[in-house]
C-alpha cells in the first residue's frame, strides 16, 4: 500500500512542524479531514476486497461441492462394481466401472479449477486480514498525527502570545505580589495587636468604668421613681383645650427638621 506510507509520511513531517514543500496549503489546512479521508479510502478498499473474497469463497465452495460429489460418485460406482463381481455379474461390474471412469474424468478435470479457486479464496482472506490490520494501524497513526498536529498548532499559538509577554506578567511575580499582600496584612494585624496591648489608658478605662456604673445607678433611681409613681398615682386633669394653630406635636416640642 505505497500511497498510505507516502501520505502518512508526508503528514508526519507536517506534524513535526517541518516545512514540507510537497504538502500544499490546501492539504495542510484540511489535515485532519485528509487523514480521515485516507482511512475512509482504506475502508472502501477493504469492503471491495471483502466482497471479492466472499465471491471467491462462494465460487470455491460451489466448485468443491461438485468436485466432492464426483469423488463420492466414483467411490459409489467402484463399490457397485465390487458388488456386481461378488454376484458374478461381470457385465454389470463393467458398466459400473465405466460410470466410475466418467466420474473420475470429471473430478480430474475439476481438480485444477478447485485448487485455483481455493488458492484465490485463501489469498483474498489473507488480504482482508492484512488490510484490516493496516486500517487499525492507519487509524492509530492518523489519530496520533492529528493530535500531534493540533498540539503543535496550539503550541505555536502560545509562542505567538509569548512574544509580547511583559516581564511582570508571570506567575512568579504574581506569587511575589500575593506574598507581599499577605505579609502586609499580617503586619497590619500584628500592629493592631500591639496597639491594643500597649495603648491601654488606665485612666480612660476607669472613666468608662465609672460611666458604666453611673448608668446603672441612674437606671436604679429611675426604677425606684417608677415604682413610687405606681404606688402613688398622680391626679388626672381634664385635657387642655387647644388654641388656634396649636397642635399636640407643638405642645410636645416635637418635629424632625434638622434631625
Amino acid at each position, binding site marked *: 500500500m505505497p500511497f498510505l506510507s507516502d501520505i502518512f509520511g508526508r503528514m508526519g513531517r507536517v506534524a513535526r512542524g517541518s516545512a514540507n514543500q510537497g504538502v500544499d496549503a490546501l492539504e495542510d489546512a484540511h489535515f485532519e479531514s485528509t487523514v480521515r479521508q485516507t482511512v475512509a479510502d482504506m475502508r472502501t478498499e477493504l469492503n471491495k476486497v471483502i466482497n471479492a473474497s466472499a465471491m471467491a469463497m462462494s465460487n470455491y465452495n460451489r466448485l468443491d461441492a461438485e468436485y466432492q460429489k464426483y469423488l463420492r460418485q466414483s467411490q459409489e460406482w467402484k463399490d457397485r462394481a465390487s458388488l456386481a463381481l461378488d454376484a458374478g455379474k461381470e457385465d454389470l461390474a463393467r458398466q459400473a466401472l465405466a460410470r466410475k471412469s466418467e466420474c473420475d474424468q470429471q473430478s480430474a478435470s475439476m481438480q485444477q479449477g478447485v485448487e485455483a479457486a481455493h488458492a484465490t479464496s485463501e489469498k483474498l482472506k489473507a488480504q482482508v486480514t492484512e488490510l484490516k490490520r493496516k486500517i487499525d494501524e492507519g487509524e492509530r497513526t492518523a489519530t496520533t498525527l492529528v493530535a500531534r498536529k493540533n498540539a503543535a498548532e496550539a503550541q505555536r*499559538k502560545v509562542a505567538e*502570545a509569548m512574544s*509580547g509577554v511583559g516581564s511582570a506578567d508571570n506567575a512568579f511575580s*504574581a506569587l511575589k*505580589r500575593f506574598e507581599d499582600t499577605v505579609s502586609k496584612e499580617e503586619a497590619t494585624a500584628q500592629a493592631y495587636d500591639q496597639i491594643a496591648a500597649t495603648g491601654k489608658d488606665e485612666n480612660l478605662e476607669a472613666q468608662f468604668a465609672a460611666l458604666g456604673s453611673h448608668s446603672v445607678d441612674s437606671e436604679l433611681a429611675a426604677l425606684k421613681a417608677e415604682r413610687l409613681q405606681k404606688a402613688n398615682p398622680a391626679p388626672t386633669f381634664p385635657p387642655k383645650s387647644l388654641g388656634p394653630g396649636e397642635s399636640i406635636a407643638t405642645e410636645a416640642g416635637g418635629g424632625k427638621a434638622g434631625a
Partner: protein
Amino acid sequence: MPMTAIHTPTLGQIHALLAERGFDVSESGPDTLKITEVHSGVSLQAVLQGEILFFSLTCTVVAEEAITPGLLAQMLAADNGIHTSHFQLYDAGEGKVAITLANFCKLQEMGPDDEDDILSCVHFLLVDVMTARHLLGSLES
C-alpha cells in the same frame, strides 16, 4: 474503533467548567482562555486546537543569558520535583526568554473524564509552579 466524527469540545464548555470551579476565566482569543486563580493571582492560558487542550503557565521572563546550562540541567532533571507538567522556553522578544510550564490533554466529548482531565491539568500547573519557583529561585530578583 472507526474514525467517526465526534462532538468537538468548545471553548465555551471549558470556560463554563473552570468558572464554575472558582477560576476567573476570560476568552483572550477565539481559541484561547486566560485562567486566573483568584487568591494568588497566578494565571495560565489554555489553547483549544481540535480535541487538544494545551495549557501554558509563564513562570517568569528572564534575559537569555540567565538560561545557563546549570539552570537547564535543573529544569530537565527527572528528580526536580516537577512531575505533572514540563518546562518550555519561548522567545519573549527583546533578548528575553519566557520560562513556562506546560501540559495538555486530549478531549473527547466533554464527559466527566474530560472535565477531570481539564481540572487536573490546571491543578497540576498550579502545584508545579510552586516547585518551579523554589527550583528557579535564583532567577527571582
